[in-house]
């Protein structure tokens, strides 16, 4: 129904957002650019069912507050992941249920794709229940930091920007979270390298 907008692929996110003030269609280009990435992130945390709507909610919210976007920031990922993190928090029960299920599911059973399973099984199989248990037990703020780094591939500065906290706080939350994850993996983890 809506034709793809004529937006150069090289335009920065900030350019798109600036243009969207006059031409809302430019914002759709931002959707095309990042919706799949956000979908994957949310689907990992909450499962595929709520992910679709939540991505839509994220872009609607972002569109509504695009006037407040700092146009000096060329990359909009931290901004979008910040919004998505707030929306994920509203689904904390879904998220807890997901980790509980992962904790109980035998390794490999969550895969639809056998090739996927083979690749991941090597290391993840034995430790998945423990990882899931650790994620479930983490306080939300620590988990947000840990997963923005591990699953959204944001660096410390970007994570800080997404959550609106100082980089030092990112560092301390991440350290705390990783300590707990390592503790959960314990000494029986066969893949763990001793420092």
């Amino acid at each position, binding site marked *: *129904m*809506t034709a793809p907008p004529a937006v150069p692929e090289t335009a920065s996110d900030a350019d798109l957002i600036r243009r969207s003030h006059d031409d*809302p269609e430019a*914002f*759709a280009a931002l*959707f*095309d650019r990042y*919706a*799949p990435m956000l*979908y*994957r992130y949310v*689907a*990992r945390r909450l499962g*595929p069912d709520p*992910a*679709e*709507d939540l*991505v*839509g909610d994220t*872009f*609607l919210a972002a*569109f*509504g507050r695009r006037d407040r976007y700092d146009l000096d920031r060329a990359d909009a990922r931290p901004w979008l992941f910040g919004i998505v993190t707030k929306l994920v928090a509203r689904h904390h029960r879904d998220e807890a249920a997901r980790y509980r299920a*992962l904790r109980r599911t035998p390794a490999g059973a*969550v*895969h639809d794709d056998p090739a*996927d*399973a083979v*690749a*991941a099984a090597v*290391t*993840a199989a034995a*430790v*998945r229940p423990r*990882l*899931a248990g650790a994620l479930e037990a983490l306080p939300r703020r620590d988990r947000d930091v*840990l*997963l923005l*780094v*591990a*699953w959204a591939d944001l660096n410390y500065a970007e994570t800080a920007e997404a959550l609106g906290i100082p980089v030092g706080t990112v560092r301390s939350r991440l350290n705390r979270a*990783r300590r707990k*994850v*390592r503790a959960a*993996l314990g000494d029986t983890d066969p*893949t*763990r*390298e001793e420092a």
Partner: protein
Amino acid sequence: MDDLNLLRDLGRALDREPPATLVRQRSRLAQARPRRRRPGPLVIAAAALATAALVLVPALLRQSGKAPATHRPGTVKAVNLLLVGADGVRGDARADSIVLVHLPADRRRVTVVSLPRDVEAPAACPGATTGGRLSGTIPNRSLTCVTRNVEALTHVRVDHVAILAYAGLVEMVDAVGGVEVMLPRAVDDPASGLKLSAGRHLVRGRPALAYARARHGLGDGSDLDRVKRQQALMAALAKAAREKITNPVTLARLVNAVTSGMVADRALTPAFLKELATSLERTDPATARYKIAPVVPDPRDPARLVLDEKRAEALFRTLR
């Protein structure tokens, strides 16, 4: 392997490819865009049009218990209204469904004729990107060209014409608390955003609009099939409106939805509408006939449609 990498592995193991239906979320964005306000005065005149043509006024008159003005036979003329459903929230509207509403002189039985939008149009419209078809953009919301083409095709005089923006349709359906649609089988059409199981459903405005516009996953995917669904929706809306307008809040919402969603021609003056409304007292929308202009593929270009002249003539003769 360290804990972060193990976590990354877990993430990859949990990964799902974004489904094709994700684009539906993109269209939510399109709907969120600010709507341009349409001009005021003519909109008021349009208020009674869809309602008069369908349900509101006769029901209102009955409800208020006032004796309607009686009309001696012969003092009321037949009236033909051209209604154009359009994508019209920004800039130029695009005609998407084109309907001729015939109110006979005795006003007893309304006939609604849908004109398939891919029918070849006889006249070119300057400034319109119609590709020679009845549909296409309507520059500056001017309906002169669509009207001229409909008249040339049907040889039916068009007395009045109005655009109904789809946004208005959504609001009308919501105002009556939803309408019932029947789906022969489950449908999941990302293009229109429609996702419903088979069977009867009470749907709100947006899914109702998707139902009316969907080309995929329903019926045979043709425009004619779509026209049938649009008529089913009109009938369902008329039925729901008739049942619900005894509630003053519903009535107010419905009138508001109609006024905000329509733009009509200047000849639809309040005086004329009042007269029209009064004359519709005897009209029962439940008896309305819904017809589709008979068409055949164009022998010169099978991708286009032309009127099936014999059968079309038989139908349109009843509207003159």
